């Protein structure tokens, strides 16, 4: 397919999106990530039945926490697609990267940079 996708995000592979936990998402932001999205299988198509539903709930919880601490819950999102939808994967990655660019850097990253400059 040779699809073009942005180069400024890192893919972390999981055996199933049901493996993701809230703390994994929060740690990414704590370490300075500007955004994060989870790509799971289509709802109803999970090999483990509920993995992607669990992931969605955890993404929602993480978003709520990020809102409460002033980082912004919109920086995290869940997408669903099937493994045969490469073009859609590319489209989602472009969509997410553009959205995060619009939002600007994460306040955590800015604060860390400010601290590092001051030191």
């Amino acid at each position: 397919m040779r699809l073009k996708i942005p180069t400024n995000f890192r893919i972390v592979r999981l055996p199933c999106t049901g493996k993701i936990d809230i703390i994994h998402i929060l740690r990414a932001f704590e370490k300075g990530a500007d955004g994060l999205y989870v790509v799971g299988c289509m709802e109803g198509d999970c090999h483990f039945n509920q993995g992607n539903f669990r992931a969605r709930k955890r993404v929602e919880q993480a978003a709520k926490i990020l809102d409460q601490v002033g980082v912004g819950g919109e920086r995290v999102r869940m997408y669903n697609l099937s493994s045969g939808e490469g073009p859609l994967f590319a489209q989602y990655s472009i969509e997410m990267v553009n959205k995060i660019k619009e939002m600007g850097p994460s306040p955590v990253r800015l604060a860390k940079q400010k601290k590092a400059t001051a030191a």
Partner: protein
Amino acid sequence: MIIAEKKPIQEIIEEVQNFDRILILGCNECVTVCEAGGKKEVEVLASALRMYFITQGKEKVISEHTLERQCDHEYLEEIRKNIDNYDAIVSLACGVGVQFAAEKYLTMPLLPGVNTICLGANEDRGLWTERCQACGSCVLARTGGICPVSRCAKRVLNGPCGGSTNGKCELGPDTDCAWQLIVDRLKALDKMDDYEKIAPIKDWSTDRAGGPRTVTREDVKI
């Protein structure tokens, strides 16, 4: 088990903002099972607080530790050697754990990170319901294993009352009528004769009415 609910992060932020070195202390027992104050919740709360304070430009040290139990002296001793490294502890244990830790570390501010709700069970994923009010004199043998003290809003011991409709309590359609459940269960057990027996007046002195309760067992005291 004891059921607790996480306190809103904003409430915890307000409680801890005047402290610089904070320990988030979890408990591996009931609050872990009800997903309110176990190791995972400790990690999440600590991470959230760190992010909040760093964006506010405040230097805070937020550490994490989870004890096997906070309602036992032995486990609470684990943190004694490091206790001077902190200005305050946010305990994610139930009210028992928070108080026990507070009694043990007299000069350390102890802040609760959860609201303790009831003695209950995990009925379904994400649903915990009350099953016991620790009244101190159990009547379950007579009521088919369904507790009228904790599950009937009026604590009626010879029920149901007039508010029972289609098996639901007058509180609302989400609350089962405890006495309907009792009758159903007694029928299943073929023990409806028990239902005919009038319960005597319950001795409430073993409940909270008699003040804070203690259990003293000379047989196990050393």
